[in-house]
């Protein structure tokens, strides 16, 4: 790099770190969210409407 190696590689290095970092954190965010929401949705889909039981009321 003709004596400019430090500056050139630092520039490319910092670009790689920032861009890959943001990419990684965004993908992790999506994975975490879909995981959470999948579990939540499964629970509400499989659970019977027990909430009504506790109120007594007219639930058989």
């Amino acid at each position, binding site marked *: 790099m*003709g004596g400019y190696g430090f*500056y050139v590689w630092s*520039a*490319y290095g*910092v*670009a790689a770190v920032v861009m890959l970092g943001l*990419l990684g954190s*965004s993908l992790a965010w999506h994975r975490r969210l879909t995981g959470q929401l999948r579990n939540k*949705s499964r629970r*509400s889909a499989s659970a019977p409407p027990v909430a009504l039981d506790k109120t007594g009321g007219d639930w058989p």
Partner: protein
Amino acid sequence: MQQLLAPKNFYLWSGRWLRPVAWATGLCTLTGLYWGLVVAPPDYLQGDSYRIMFVHVPSAWMSLFVYAVMAGAGAVALVWRIKVAEVVASASAPIGAAFTALALMTGSLWGKPMWGTWWVWDARLTSELLLLFLYLGYMALEQAIEDRRTATRAAAVLALVGAVDLPIIHYSVEWWHTLHQAPTVTRFGAPAIHGSMLAPLLVMALAFFGYYVSLLLVRARCELLERERTNPWVGEVCRGIP
């Protein structure tokens, strides 16, 4: 178009486009890096230091472009209250901030060997630094308001007011005497940069653009899931029910 603006449709559509865009971006990145770092000849004045341009210029371009998208989507969200516009504005902010920070840092790394200083308070550098503060202010304001939709609308007003910085940044090198060079690619007539350096620059610009689009899709999808989490379609798509 109208259908695409429904959150669920946008979520499914963006999921289909994400992979091809990401692959094209990766291809452009590898091509651009090889072309810019290996094939392109050294500059007769700046030697190899000019190779910083291949990350510096695309970052700077994208810092302006992303801000324009953010402010534009913010305006649409303010006027028509379209949810997809809200998430596009919101998802763009951290990506734009990253591009702005990169433009400043790589510029600094280029300035030290060429100008003899890391930083000068000249018009181009200062207005670009202001852009970084606008992005950070946008994100801070959005975080400070509990309700996501209200937060996005409030931040959109800030983004629109801050948009006045965009022409200032662009014309700063012409309006004021600065250390920063004038544009060489976008000026009228032939570009003042040789084709052997212009071609890899444009490929890298394309790669940065693709990176923005890919990341925008990922982050916009996250924003949609968070904002719509009580909506039945969210549970359905997360469980793989189309």
